[in-house]
C-alpha cells in the first residue's frame, strides 16, 4: 500500500516529517518497506537558461551551449536537437548523480570541449518514461529554481499491510493508527447526505446473499465525464495509479482514501433497468465476461456475478472487476454508482481461481467495513457532482450488511498479565478509544470490569488477546520489561533423545571419515522415485515447484547420485557425500523415516604409491565405523548378499540385518541401469542406513562399563589355509572359525585369498589367522592342538578343506 505525505495530511494534523512517520508506522505494526522521496534524488537539479548554442567544432550532432545557471555562466556540451538559445531547461552540475542514466557527472572533455555540467531531459531525471530532447520549461521560471519543487514530486510511503488489517488499505485508517500512536491529531469529516432528486431508475435484485449480502447504488444523470483535474491526477499517479477519467478516478480515490471500493456503470450501456447479483453459471453454461482489463474470464458458480438483462448478461465480477461492455468513458452522461459488500472468502477465491487481481478484489478479500456502504456512496456522489455535475437519484439499498463485531468482556489487568507492561487503566482505555473501540463499564459484580465493542472495520478482533495487542503495539514494544525465564533443571542426560543424539554422532563421524555433508530436497521426480521403490500417487505433489521435483523421495540416494553427477559435470568427479534426512514411505505421520545415506563416486587421483584401498571395502569399513559410533549391534548383524532391492548391483551389494524382517542397511555398488537413468557416470557406491530400524543399545542408562578384561598372558596366533568352493562366502568360514571356541578365539583375520596353481578350478584358498587369547594360564601345546583341531572341524563343516 502506497500513499503520499500530503494525502495523509488530509486526515492527520501532524508536524512529523516523512521519516518520523515511517518510523512510527513501523513501530505500530505498519511495516514500512520503502520511503520513496523523489525530491531527494532531484536535489542537485536546478533551472537554467541557454544563452547561446553553437555547433560543436568537432561533432555535427553536438552543440556547445553557454548556459546561465545557479553556478554562473557555464559552457555545456549538449547532444539534444532542441537545445537552442533562449530555452529554459534543467541543469545538472558536475558531481550530480543522474538517476535515469545511473551515472555521476565528471568533468571531462566531449570531443575536445570540456562540458561543465549537463542539460537534462525528463527521463534522465526519471520524471518520464521517455523524452524527446532536453526538458523545455516555461521561460518565466527563474534560473536557479530547484527542479524538485516544479514537478510536485513528494515523498511516497510504501508499507506492508498485514492480512488482518484491511482498514489500513485506506489512508484514513492509517491516520487513525498514527493518531493513536501520538504522531498527530486525527481529522474527522462529516460525510454529508446528498439528497436524491428522483427515484433510482435502476433497481437491484440480490440472488446470492451469501456472496453479496448488501448492495446500494444510485443513478447520477447528466454528468460530464472527461480527464480529471490536475490535483486528482497527481494524487493518483503519485502512488502509481493511472488516471482514467473523472468517474473512474473518483472510485479509485475513495478505494485508497477509505478502503471502500466502488464501481460505476454507464447507464446507457445497461440492458434493462435491473441489476442482478448472483452466482456464476455452471460450467456447461459457460459464462464469459470481458473485464475492464480486456481479458476474458469464465465465471463458474463459485464466482459472484453482477448481471443486467434480467440477470442474463454478466456485466461484472462482483467485488473484483467490472465488464468492458458497461464501463464509463468520456461520452457517459448517466452513471450508476455501486457501493456493495462482497464476501471476503468468495472474493479471495475468485482472485485465486481466475487469477484476477484488482484494488477492489484485494480489499474485499481482506474485508471491507460493511458500515461504509452508504457513507462511501454519499462521498462518491459528492465528488462526482463536484467534478462532473449532474443530478443524483435517491439511493437504492438492498439487503442487510453483515453484523458488527460483538461486544465482549475485558479486564485491563490482562495487558500486564500477557505483556508484563504496567499501564494505567486510563491509558489502556484511551488507546482503545482512539482506535475506535467502544469501552464501557461492565455491570457491577462482573469478573471483568469492562465491556469492549470493536469498531465495524475491525472484524479481526474477537477477544481479549487482540485488545492486548492493540494496546501493546500503540504503547510500543520498546516498553516491554526484561524478564528471564525461570530456571529449570536441565535433564541430567542432556536434552536430546537417543535418536537425535545418534543423528548428531553419525553426522560428525561421517564428516571425520571424509564425507561432505549435503542437504538436498525432500522431493525428486516421480519417475526417479519409482526407480527407488517409491513414486506412489499419494506422495505426488499437486503443485510442484518444478516438474522434476514432484514427488516425495523414497530414498536419499537419487538426490545424492544426481549431486555427484552434477559435480562430475563441473569437473569434480571424485565425490564422497552424505546426507542425514527424511524419506517418505507414505503420507501418514508415522510413514517418515530418517536415513543416514552416504555416496562415493570413486575417482581418486592417481598416486605414485599405486592404488589405495579397494573403494567398495573402504566404504564397507566406513559404514561399519558409523554403525559402531551410533551404537548399532554390529557384532550381531547378519550380512545378506543377493537380496538387495533392484537399484543395487546384484553382485556387488549387500544388506545388514538383524533378521530378514529387520533390514537396517543396504550398501554396495549402485546398479548401472539406475545410474544411466539418472544420467550419472558410474561406478558409484553407497549405503543407506534406516536409523529407525537400528535398535537402541540396551542398558545405556547405566554409565558404568564393567571391568576391563586385560589378560596378562600373550595372545598367540595360528594360521590356516582352507580350500572351499569359489562361491562360498568367506564370512561363513570366519564365523565358523570364530565360533570354534568363543572363550579363547578373540579374532579371525583373513589375510589371503588365492586362486590358481595348486587350487582346483572353481575353488579358492582362504588363509585365516586365528588369534587366541589364553585366559587363566598359558596354553600347553596339546591344548593348542586341540583348539586347532576344533577350528579345522568347524570350518570343514562349512565345506572348507584344510590345505596341506
Amino acid at each position: 500500500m502506497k500513499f503520499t505525505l500530503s494525502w495523509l495530511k488530509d486526515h492527520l494534523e501532524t508536524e512529523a516529517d516523512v521519516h518520523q512517520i515511517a518510523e512510527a508506522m513501523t513501530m505500530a505494526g505498519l511495516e514500512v518497506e520503502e520511503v520513496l522521496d523523489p525530491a531527494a534524488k532531484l536535489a542537485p537539479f536546478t533551472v537554467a537558461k541557454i544563452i547561446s548554442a553553437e555547433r560543436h567544432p568537432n561533432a555535427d550532432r553536438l552543440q556547445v551551449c553557454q548556459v546561465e545557471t545557479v553556478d554562473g555562466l557555464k559552457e555545456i556540451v549538449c547532444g539534444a536537437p532542441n537545445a537552442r538559445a533562449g530555452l529554459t531547461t534543467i541543469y545538472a552540475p558536475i558531481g550530480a548523480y543522474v538517476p535515469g542514466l545511473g551515472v555521476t557527472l565528471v568533468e571531462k572533455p566531449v570531443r575536445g570541449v570540456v562540458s561543465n555540467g549537463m542539460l537534462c531531459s525528463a527521463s534522465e531525471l526519471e520524471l518520464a518514461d521517455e523524452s524527446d530532447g532536453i526538458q523545455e520549461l516555461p521561460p518565466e521560471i527563474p534560473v536557479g529554481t530547484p527542479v524538485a519543487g516544479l514537478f510536485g514530486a513528494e515523498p511516497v510511503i510504501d508499507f506492508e499491510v498485514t492480512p488482518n488489517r484491511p482498514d489500513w488499505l485506506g489512508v484514513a485508517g492509517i491516520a487513525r493508527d498514527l493518531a493513536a500512536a501520538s504522531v498527530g491529531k486525527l481529522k474527522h469529516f462529516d460525510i454529508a447526505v446528498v439528497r436524491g432528486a428522483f427515484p433510482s431508475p435502476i433497481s437491484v435484485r440480490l440472488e446470492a446473499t451469501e456472496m453479496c449480502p448488501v448492495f446500494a447504488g444510485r443513478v447520477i444523470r447528466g454528468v460530464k465525464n472527461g480527464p480529471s483535474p490536475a490535483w486528482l491526477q497527481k494524487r493518483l499517479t503519485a502512488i502509481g495509479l493511472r488516471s482514467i477519467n473523472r468517474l473512474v478516478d473518483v472510485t479509485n480515490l475513495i478505494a485508497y482514501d477509505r478502503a471502500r471500493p466502488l464501481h460505476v456503470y454507464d447507464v446507457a450501456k445497461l440492458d434493462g433497468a435491473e441489476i442482478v447479483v448472483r452466482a456464476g453459471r455452471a460450467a456447461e453454461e459457460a459464462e464469459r465476461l470481458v473485464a475492464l482489463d480486456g481479458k476474458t474470464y469464465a465465471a463458474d458458480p463459485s464466482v459472484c456475478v453482477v448481471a443486467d438483462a434480467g440477470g442474463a448478461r454478466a456485466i461484472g465480477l462482483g467485488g473484483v472487476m467490472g465488464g468492458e461492455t458497461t464501463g464509463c468513458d468520456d461520452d457517459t452522461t448517466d452513471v450508476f454508482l455501486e457501493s456493495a459488500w462482497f464476501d471476503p472468502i468468495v472474493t479471495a477465491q475468485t482472485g485465486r481461481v481466475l487469477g484476477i487481481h484488482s484494488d477492489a478484489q484485494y480489499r474485499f478479500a481482506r474485508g471491507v467495513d460493511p458500515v461504509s456502504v452508504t457513507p462511501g456512496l454519499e462521498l462518491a456522489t459528492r465528488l462526482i457532482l463536484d467534478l462532473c455535475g449532474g443530478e443524483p437519484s435517491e439511493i437504492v439499498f438492498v439487503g442487510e450488511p453483515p453484523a458488527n463485531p460483538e461486544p465482549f468482556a475485558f479486564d485491563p489487568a490482562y495487558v500486564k498479565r500477557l505483556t508484563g507492561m504496567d499501564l494505567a487503566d486510563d491509558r489502556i482505555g484511551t488507546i482503545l478509544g482512539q482506535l475506535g473501540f467502544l469501552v464501557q463499564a461492565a455491570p457491577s459484580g462482573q469478573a471483568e470490569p469492562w465491556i469492549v465493542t470493536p469498531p465495524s472495520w475491525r472484524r479481526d478482533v474477537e477477544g481479549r488477546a487482540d485488545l492486548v495487542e492493540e494496546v501493546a503495539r500503540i504503547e510500543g514494544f520498546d516498553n516491554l520489561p526484561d524478564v528471564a525465564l525461570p530456571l529449570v533443571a536441565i535433564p541430567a542426560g542432556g536434552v536430546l533423545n537417543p535418536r537425535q543424539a545418534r543423528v548428531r554422532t553419525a553426522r560428525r563421524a561421517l564428516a571425520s571419515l571424509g564425507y561432505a555433508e549435503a542437504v538436498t530436497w525432500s522431493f525428486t521426480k516421480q519417475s526417479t522415485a519409482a526407480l527407488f521403490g517409491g513414486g506412489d500417487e499419494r506422495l505426488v505433489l499437486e503443485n510442484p515447484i518444478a516438474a522434476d521435483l514432484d514427488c516425495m523421495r523414497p530414498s536419499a540416494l537419487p538426490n545424492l547420485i544426481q549431486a555427484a553427477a552434477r559435480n562430475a559435470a563441473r569437473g569434480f568427479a571424485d565425490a564422497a557425500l552424505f546426507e542425514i534426512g527424511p524419506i517418505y514411505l507414505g503420507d501418514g505421520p508415522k510413514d517418515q523415516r530418517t536415513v543416514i545415506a552416504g555416496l562415493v563416486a570413486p575417482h581418486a587421483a592417481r598416486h605414485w604409491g599405486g592404488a589405495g584401498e579397494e573403494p567398495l571395502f573402504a566404504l564397507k569399513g566406513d559404514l561399519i565405523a558409523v554403525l559402531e559410533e551410533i551404537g548399532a549391534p554390529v557384532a550381531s548383524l547378519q550380512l545378506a548378499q543377493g537380496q538387495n532391492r533392484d537399484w543395487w548391483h546384484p553382485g556387488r551389494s549387500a544388506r545388514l540385518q538383524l533378521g530378514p524382517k529387520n533390514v537396517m542397511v543396504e550398501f554396495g555398488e549402485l546398479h548401472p541401469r539406475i545410474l544411466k537413468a539418472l544420467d550419472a557416470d558410474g561406478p558409484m557406491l553407497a549405503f543407506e542406513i534406516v536409523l529407525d530400524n537400528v535398535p537402541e543399545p540396551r542398558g545405556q542408562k547405566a554409565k558404568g562399563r564393567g571391568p576391563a578384561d586385560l589378560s596378562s598372558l600373550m595372545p598367540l596366533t595360528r594360521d590356516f589355509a582352507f580350500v572351499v568352493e569359489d562361491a562360498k562366502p568367506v564370512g561363513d568360514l570366519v564365523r565358523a572359525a570364530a565360533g570354534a571356541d568363543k572363550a579363547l578365539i578373540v579374532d579371525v583375520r583373513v589375510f589371503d585369498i588365492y586362486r590358481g596353481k595348486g587350487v582346483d578350478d572353481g575353488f579358492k584358498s582362504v588363509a585365516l589367522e586365528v588369534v587366541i587369547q589364553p585366559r587363566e594360564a598359558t596354553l600347553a601345546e596339546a591344548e593348542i592342538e586341540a583348539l586347532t583341531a576344533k577350528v579345522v572341524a568347524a570350518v570343514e563343516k562349512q565345506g572348507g578343506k584344510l590345505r596341506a
Partner: protein
Amino acid sequence: MTDLATLELELINAIGSAESVAALEEVRVAALGKSGSVSGLLKGMGALSPDERREQGPIINGLRDRVSSAIAARKAELEAAELDARLLAERVDLTLPARPRRKGGVHPTMQVMDEMVAVFAEMGFAVAEGPDIEDDFHNFTALNFPPKHPAREMHDTFFLKPDPETGERKVLRTHTSPVQVRTMMSQKPPIRIIAPGRTFRKDSDATHTPMFHQIEGLVIDRDINMGHLKTTLQTFIARFFELDEVQARFRPHHFPFTEPSAEMDIRCDRSGGKLVFNTGDDWLEILGCGMVHPNVLRNCGIDPDEYQGFAFGMGVDRLAMLKYGVPDLRPMFDADTRWLAHYGFSAFAAPNPASGLS
C-alpha cells in the same frame, strides 16, 4: 719374547685392517678360536713349570685381553659403519606427497542447527520433532488460520494429491508449528521445547528455496509473558552470534497463531557491503514471535485462562548465512563439493560451552 711381541703386532694389524664384520670374525677365530694362535699359547701354559707359568701367565693373558678388546672395538666400529651405510641406502624422498585423504565436513545449516540446539539446551529447552507431511489441522486449523483465509495463501503451501478415498489433501508443513501443536496435544504444561526441521513453501528465487529449515520454540506455563519472550530471544540471539549483548527491537506484526505478535530486528550496519551488528541505523529482521493465541491453546486442549506462553520461529539457513557470511541461499542445497568444502565445518567443531559454538 720377541715372538709374542711379533704375534701381538700381527694380530693388531690384522684386526685394524679387517674391512667387514665377517673378516674380523676370521681374525678372531685365527687368534682366539679353538685352535687359534693365542688360544694355543694359553693351552701351552699347562706344560710349563710353576715358575715359568708364574712368569709367562700374566704376559699371555695380557696379550689375550688386548687382542679381545681390540676385536670388540673394531667390531663396534665396523657395525656402526655398516648401519650408516644401510641407513643411507634406505633414504626415501619425503618431498613425495602422501596419499590424499578426502576431507569431509558438516553442512553449515546443520552446524547452525547444532549450535542453536546447544544454546537452547542450556536454557532448558527439549527438542521436539514431527512429520514433514502434515494434515490441514496441524499445519493451519489448530494454529488459528481460518479456512480459506488469505493468511493461508501467504504460505504458498505445497499440497499432495488428494486421497482418492477421502479427498483429503495433505500438505508439506509450511513451518514447524505443527510440532508445537502435537507437543501441546500430547504433553501437559509446563512446556519448553524447540522444534527444528525441514519446512516447505512453493517459492523459488534468489532468497527463497522450496525447502528450508526452521527452528521454532514454545514456552507454556502459568505466568509466562512477553517480557520473558523478549529476554529469552535477546539472550539467544546474542549467544548465537557470540556477542556480549545484542541491540534488538521488537516490532508489532501479525501472525494468526500469536497475539500479540512481533518481529525481532537487530541493529546493524550494511553500508560497507559487510554486515556488522549493534552499530548503524539499519535493522535486520531476525525472527517472528508472539504470545500463543488463546484459540491455539484451546485447539490443543490447553485452557487459556490457566496457561499462556510464547512461541517464536526463525529460518536456520538464513541465520547460517548471516553468521557465516554465506552470500547465496540456493547453493545451500546444491551439494557442490567445492562449496561444501569452503562453507562446511570440521567434524570436531561440535558446539559446546567450553570452546564455543564453532
